[in-house]
């Protein structure tokens, strides 16, 4: 390989380039690379397919229907609004009425729901039922509690619209009774159309009784099972004083207790 090269009449000839003087690094190296033409294997396409599905999931779940008005609310507490008194080093002395704290906490828990039901409770047309104008929110607390505890599956009609989304709603029984009571209160008072005189409050005791009552039901709850519950039935338990949060007990305020069976 080291014999002198022929005269190739190239312009570097003036520099006396002959193979014997070419640097060793250049002499010993392999020829310029080429590419083989092995076909793409089927198994690799599966990796690509899995990643496509994952990416599509991100796009579908988080894109908010590609609406310019839909800013980010998913999995964040953006809908939570003012923080409850007592947070952030506040000693709690400036606490407002009990119901305000209870609602603010409920709004925080509602952060779990905004991805589907939206901060405004309007749901997503054709996919997730609304909470505004929903007979399940406006009606008795028993059905609402069953949905919260057990989730839902199957076709359902809400506010005259039918929905048939698979895995319609997950069960939220991993949340404490208190949190479920707060969010149920928040939903009913914010989005519900309550009968005259009803406060819409759901207490921790009520949710606790619901947890016991529905423990035998399947999860997620088929909508056919849900239909068996009395639409007007309320959970058992005493109503509370909206100012203090104390149970109203044996002497209920006018117009409140009689709604509770």
């Amino acid at each position, binding site marked *: *390989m080291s*014999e002198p*090269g*022929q005269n*190739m009449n*190239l312009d*570097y000839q003036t*520099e006396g*380039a002959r*193979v014997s003087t*070419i*640097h*060793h*690094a*250049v*002499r*010993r*190296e*392999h*020829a*310029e*690379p*080429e*590419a*083989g*033409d*092995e*076909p*793409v294997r089927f198994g*690799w396409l599966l*990796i*690509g397919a899995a*990643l*496509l599905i*994952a*990416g*599509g999931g*991100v*796009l579908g*779940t*988080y*894109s*908010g229907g*590609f*609406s*310019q*008005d*839909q*800013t*980010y*609310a*998913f*999995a*964040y*507490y953006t809908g*939570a609004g003012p*923080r409850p008194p007592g*947070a*952030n*080093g506040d000693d709690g002395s400036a606490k407002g009425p009990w119901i305000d704290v209870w609602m603010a906490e409920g709004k925080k828990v509602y952060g779990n729901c905004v991805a589907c039901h939206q901060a405004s409770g309007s749901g997503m047309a054709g996919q997730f039922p609304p909470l505004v104008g929903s007979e399940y929110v406006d009606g008795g607390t028993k059905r609402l509690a069953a949905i919260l505890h057990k989730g839902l599956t199957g076709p359902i009609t809400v506010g005259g619209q039918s929905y048939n989304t698979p895995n319609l709603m997950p069960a939220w029984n991993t949340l404490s009774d208190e949190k479920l009571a707060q969010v149920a209160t928040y939903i009913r008072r914010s989005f519900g159309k309550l009968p005259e005189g009803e406060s819409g409050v759901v207490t921790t005791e009520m949710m606790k009784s619901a947890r016991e009552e529905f423990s035998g039901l399947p999860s997620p709850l088929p909508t056919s099972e849900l239909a068996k519950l009395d639409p007007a039935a309320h959970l058992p338990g005493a109503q509370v004083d909206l100012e203090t949060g104390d149970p109203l007990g044996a002497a209920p305020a006018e117009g409140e207790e009689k709604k509770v069976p």
Partner: protein
Amino acid sequence: MSSTSPGASPQDMQERAAIDRSVRFPVMFFFTSAAAWLFAATILGMVAALKLRVPTLWDACPWLSFGRIFPAHMDALIYGWAMQAGLGIMIWMMARLSRVELRNATYIIVLGHVWNFGVALGVLAVWSGFGNSRTWLDFPSMLWPMLAATYVLIVVTILVMFRVRRDGPVFISEEYLVAAAVWFPWVYVTANLILGAKGSAVMSAGVTVWYMQNLLYFWFIPIAVAIAYYIIPKVVGRPIYSYPLAKFGFWTLAICAGWMGFQRFYGGPFPAWMPAVGGASTIFALIGITAIAVNLFYTMQGKFSLMQFSPSLRFSLFGMAMLLLFAVLSALKSFIGISKYLQFNLFELGLDTLAIYGVFSMAAFGAIYFIVPRITGCEWPHGGWIRRHFWFSTYGILTVLVGMFAAGLSQGASLDAWDTPFEVSVKVAKPWIVALVLGWVFIAFSNLGFFWQLALMFVGKGRRSEGPTLIHVAPGEAASAEQAANVAKGTAHA
């Protein structure tokens, strides 16, 4: 022409030698000035990390405040080191692959000086407090047209070489080089034009992250991949496993990358689809990166032992391993449940550093270790320093990555807890910032040997020898990494 036999014909050798001679001065100019910028950037990086750990240190001096040092460090690293090293590699590799001699070396050297002047002006402006606080676009806004024009004028020569290439199939590295050459001006000019339009402040934050992500996926990663696709067959002496797969990887990257960026702002005040599209395309881009990784793995199969000896191979393959890691981490971060804890905090810095140093710079070192002996006519002086360069760079980048991951996680968890004061999220990350300091100390140390060796090569004081400088082999003992591997295995070299 056989693709696997070393040496090839005397004509081939003469042609290669002529090409190397024609690009020698511009390429060495870019490499040495890049190395000088890297030196400046590592020093600034150490100081910035130290300031982050001990904010009260030298607090009387505004020139040493974190807000100036850190952007100066990043800009020196990107525009000083990485882009110049990349340009040098592009010129050499394009000339080699097109089998064309460079006709206008002086023109490129002049433009290279202009680029250096622009970057120096920009870094000094940022350092003296005239930066505009847009990440990676901190240079005063009058500078960008000059830098963009200089870049375009330089890459025109690369595109011309590609245009007049000798007939034959286009190698995959050429595709990446051409793409990187034209993508950068597009990304850079678009970002700067939109930012200059004085739109909403929120959107300019969005444009900045779009630019950052696209600089990574449209410039740094393509060049790193081009290097790997070139160096690996060169050292191993095999063709790239599959051209269809390589093309698939290229186009996946080309199609997906431009959509990225906003996923850094999940939960930000943007229409929800913007981050969602960014996140999804980051996951889609992982398909392309996986294709690259699979292709290189099959090309390397059975030859991994060569990594022990060949510095070029070791650095560029390490860069590719880091690329896979980077792409996987980026894809994971595109899920909101994970991103929740890893965005808006130090983990992003860890990830960016991984891309710039772990992926691009390591691959670039591999290319430089390959190119410089060929264009200077002497061998690297000391294999031991190459080994130290590799290991301390590896320690450095992994320390930064792991430390920033831990810092980001603790910061993110604290940020996510709405009832925790913001201050806490700063305090919990503080212990981990030691990793950032330590990482940059390692990187600075690793590069000392590199600078010294490069300076020796530059002035022609490299080793005069027939054999290459290999790692773990005494000079002159083996004529190639392949031979060294055979000796190590106890088989005679045929």
